[in-house]
């Protein structure tokens, strides 16, 4: 509570807009009755607020008719250019969300498509790469490839074929505008998300070999979500805009798949308890389960994904290790060497 002249003077603006907390709201009028200078200042500020409130007799009174139709506003907002995440089965949900996430970032790239992002790619090439990367699953599910076909000899190793296709698509897309490239990427993603395999878990349980990796189609969708998110995160870093991590349930799906693929790569290694923290958290024993545990390795789910995605090195990834450092180190190195992206 304030009684002095200077103190009340500081409160006059808050008084004029009706923003005084209980207590102060009694002090001010008492002082105003006794102080001409403050009363004049108060009157001037109050007049200003009265004008802010709105003019007498002109149109609706302040505060009137503020209730409107939620449906109208929401329907109109959702008609805005950006689509909502597609409704799909849980295995395709991380991909649907990641596609929506990249679409949310696209407007921020206006005029900045030449920004270096990752590898030797600018933002334009990064989206072009996603066209090439998604295409392998899309073609497998009966979606036609969009950029011109590449001339890759049969028998080329999957990794090399992957790199050449990306290089061809980037070269092709660089002859087009970023807007056209985004449209091609988004159209292919939308087609992938309306395939029966995106909506039906049973269909998606069938294995398919995509770029040399034989996994259930559902897992290929998870990998698409993983890659779209990681590259969106790359673009966000280049723009200085932090891209939020995927929803907890999606992050959990990504972590589970990464661990499932990492398991066989650690066959026979000293067993380590890997503890992933947070709401997406869970834990596994990786390595030779018949032996006693040698170490416990605690990682944040996002950091774990960034390690698997090649965005953290085993040296720098934030972690807590108890027990055998070398055994934990082996897990980190194998995770980084999955080199999915």
């Amino acid at each position, binding site marked *: 509570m304030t009684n002095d002249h200077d103190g009340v003077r*500081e409160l006059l603006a808050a008084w004029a807009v009706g923003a005084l907390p209980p207590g102060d709201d009694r002090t001010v009028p008492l002082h105003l009755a006794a102080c001409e200078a403050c009363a004049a200042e108060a009157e001037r500020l109050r007049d200003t607020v009265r004008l802010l409130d709105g003019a007498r007799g002109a149109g609706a009174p302040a505060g009137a008719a503020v209730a409107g139709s939620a449906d109208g506003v929401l329907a109109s907002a959702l008609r805005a250019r950006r689509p909502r995440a597609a409704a799909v089965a849980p295995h395709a949900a991380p991909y649907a969300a990641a596609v929506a996430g990249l679409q949310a970032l696209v407007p921020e790239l206006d005029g900045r498509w030449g920004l270096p992002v990752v590898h030797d790619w600018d933002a334009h090439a990064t989206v072009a790469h996603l066209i090439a990367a998604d295409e392998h699953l899309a073609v497998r599910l009966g979606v036609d490839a969009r950029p011109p076909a590449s001339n890759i000899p049969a028998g080329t190793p999957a990794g090399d074929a992957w790199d050449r296709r990306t290089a061809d698509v980037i070269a092709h897309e660089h002859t087009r505008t970023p807007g056209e490239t985004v449209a091609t990427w988004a159209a292919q993603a939308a087609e992938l998300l309306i395939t029966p395999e995106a909506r039906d878990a049973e269909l998606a349980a069938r294995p398919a070999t995509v770029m040399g990796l034989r996994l259930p189609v559902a897992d290929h969708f998870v990998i698409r979500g993983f890659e779209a998110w990681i590259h969106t995160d790359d673009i966000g870093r280049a723009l200085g805009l932090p891209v939020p991590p995927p929803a907890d349930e999606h992050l959990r799906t990504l972590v589970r798949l990464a661990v499932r693929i990492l398991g066989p790569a650690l066959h026979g290694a000293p067993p380590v308890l890997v503890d992933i923290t947070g709401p997406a958290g869970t834990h596994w024993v990786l390595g030779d389960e018949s032996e006693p545990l040698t170490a416990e390795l605690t990682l944040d789910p996002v950091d774990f994904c960034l390690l698997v995605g090649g965005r953290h090195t085993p040296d720098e990834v934030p972690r807590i290790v108890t027990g055998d450092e070398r055994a934990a180190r082996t897990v980190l190195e194998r995770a980084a060497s999955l080199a999915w992206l």
Partner: protein
Amino acid sequence: MEPTLEQPSIDVELHRRLVYGDESALREAYAAYGGLVRRVAVRVTRSPAAAEDVAQEVFAQLWSRPYGFDARRGSLRTWLSMLAHRRAVDWVRGEARHRKDPRADDTVLHGIPDPRPGPDEAVVDRERSLLLHTALAELPRPQREVVHLAYFAGRTYRQAAVELGIPEGTAKTRLRSALRKLAESLADPPDPAPVRGA
């Protein structure tokens, strides 16, 4: 909705869901802040229909450009309130330009006295009110944020200080500087510069 220390993390979570195209996050943002957005818009435009348009624009922008809001720079409440205010001022200025009434062009909107027999008091007040709202839209962001919380969102200066993460004294000072500047803008109208986009 009272401001709490958890508000930033609520905003961060809402923003995350908006970014990933979760429609229910837009519904929640509307349920929490739709009333405030309309209140701000109606106060400036004096027109429920215009307020509806402004609310549509504001939530369409939140949905289509979620990265326009940056939780590191302030709360979603102040961001939406400031966006609604700016859009509403733009609406009134656009409306004034489209009207044929010569008294409603920018010259009069910026308070230069008309030598002819004056318009009635209500119209003068209307124009002075728009002048003030234009000046408010151009205040430095730290001052604008306090005005939005204390004036439009009905927060006490103490609650505003908590929500903005600033000392109470700073909130009081910013509010005072802001209101004084607005009062001065009536006495000393600014150049008729266009209002910048949000």
